[in-house]
């Protein structure tokens, strides 16, 4: 038996071929200047109410941003902000999850937990980007999709699934940034990019540490233990190939200096979009597919004793016959 870890560390980062090294990104865990924080510290930082949220970043990164509203079907969801901004003079479509910076704003923004109509608004903007050949930038920052009964009734699961589907085949460059909290499927609905970056202190997880603790350890108090086990911090994500690079945060965390954070994000975006603009859309889609295709950890015995080669799916598909 061969333990073939598909999508192992360095490979995935270089594998998709688009990660810049000239834009200040952290591309290897070894490059982290300061010593790594604990998973639980990362959770606290990622959730800090003073952390810059989507609109704080948009304001600092884009010139002349115009917010566009509505899903054209039910409601304009304030937990997702969308619009067109100019990045160094080039129009870019922006879609971000928006948490509040105060209790009042958090209530208005539903604590950054989108309803299905939020994801449908996002999809509308994804399609707008594709129609007009504008690159798409997404900013992920949510505890998760809203789990309330109205959200269930209006198809939270369907909206997330369609959002992901729309991104996987969207014929325009996509850079996704995990800005703060990447909460499960509700985050992934904005998270399918040609390049996926994470802020240095962001987290991204299949379930909240509290949720995992409640199920696995029968106690929400064990959240810290769960956070560790889930390997949800940005450096861990980088080492697993889930994100392609980390955007450095100012000393002490992004909440201490929004402007510097914005500058770092802008540098990363400009560099990534410059690269992606040169990739023909067919190659873009192939690479995007292969990027996510390669993620996972499976053990597969070789039928003839030799280890199976890692190769593009279509080679496998054309070869295998029952």
């Amino acid at each position, binding site marked *: 038996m061969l333990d073939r870890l598909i999508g192992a560390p360095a490979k995935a980062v270089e594998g998709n071929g688009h990660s810049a090294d000239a834009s200040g990104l952290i591309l290897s865990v070894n490059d982290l200047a300061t010593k790594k924080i604990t998973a639980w510290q990362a959770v606290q930082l990622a959730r800090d109410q003073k952390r810059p949220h989507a609109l704080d970043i948009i304001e600092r990164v884009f010139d002349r941003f115009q917010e566009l509203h509505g899903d054209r079907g039910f409601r304009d969801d304030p937990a997702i902000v969308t619009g067109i901004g100019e990045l160094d003079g080039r129009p870019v479509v922006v879609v971000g999850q928006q948490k509040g910076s105060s209790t009042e704003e958090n209530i208005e923004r539903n604590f950054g937990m989108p309803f299905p109509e939020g994801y449908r608004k996002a999809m509308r903007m994804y399609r707008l980007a594709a129609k007009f050949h504008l690159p798409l930038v997404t900013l992920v920052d949510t505890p998760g999709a809203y789990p309330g009964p109205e959200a269930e009734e209006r198809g*939270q699961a369907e909206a997330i699934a369609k959002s992901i589907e729309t991104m*996987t085949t969207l014929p325009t460059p996509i850079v996704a940034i995990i800005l703060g909290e990447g909460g499960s499927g509700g985050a992934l609905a904005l998270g399918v990019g040609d390049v996926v970056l994470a802020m240095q202190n962001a987290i991204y997880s299949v379930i909240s540490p509290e949720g995992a603790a409640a199920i696995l350890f029968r106690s929400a108090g064990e959240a810290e233990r769960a956070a560790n086990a889930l390997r949800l911090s940005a450096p861990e994500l980088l080492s697993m190939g889930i994100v392609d690079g980390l955007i450095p945060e100012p000393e002490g965390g992004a909440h201490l200096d929004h402007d510097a954070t914005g500058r770092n994000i802008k540098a990363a975006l400009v560099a990534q979009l410059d690269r992606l603009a040169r990739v023909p859309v067919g190659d873009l889609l192939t690479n995007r597919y292969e990027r996510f295709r390669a*993620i*996972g950890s499976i053990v*597969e015995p070789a039928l003839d004793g030799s280890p199976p080669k890692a190769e593009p799916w279509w080679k496998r598909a054309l070869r295998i016959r029952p």
Partner: protein
Amino acid sequence: MPFARGRKEFPSHLWTQCPTCGEMLFNKQLVRNLNVCLKCDHHFKLGARERLELIADKGSFLEIDRELSSGDPLGFVDSTPYPARILAAQTKSGEKDAIVCGTATVGGVPSVLAVMDFDFIGGSMGSVVGEKITRAAERALADRRALIVVSASGGARMQEGTLALMQMAKIIGALARLGEAGLPFVSVLTDPTTGGVLASFASLGDVILAEPDALVGFSGARVTAGTIGEKLPKGFQRSEFVLAHGFIDQVVPRSQLKERLAFLLGALRPAARDLRWSL
């Protein structure tokens, strides 16, 4: 049989009590009735192999990717280390993970089937489920076959962390390519289909069928009820409720599932070649 008997008269290897109507059901009869209660039509869970027998044309099923099993990418330990948990499930079920895939014909239409099994760690979706459904979709695309996925899952497998989450994008990527090539994908939801499974491939069928009274929802009802701190509407997150809300095409009794699938695949039967190239 309809007179009252004491519990001790129903040894559990011979009898099963229906959780809906309370009827004691003779196991052999229950199996013959496709694990559907003879009195109230309650649909018991069905294992992947039994489901395949029900759907695939007799003798047509050829399993693929049987030997894939899970790594332990996170070194995950809760009450038990993850590898031990996997091994226990493998030993108990005889399967390598929570899904069985293969090629078959369904009503004569060449198809690829992927059927989940709830008994294997709650049908949870980790890298193996992700990889196998992705390969099933890729196989359907390569061979121009229809794809049927039968879901039975509590969602993503948290012991594989964010890697499990990424399986959603991976599978959907493959399904999207299948769709672009004009090949049909029918999703069958059984009890339960929730979380990251419903929020990915299960919701993307060209046609979505569900078994009666199956739990179909994104968030656990406990979470949802906690969110509002009150009682949920009647039938909340059950097939019929979800049908009324527009997310399911048909609720299909198990006895009619094969016939319904055969009709749909016949109607949506993929052209022998990709019609995008035929203009």
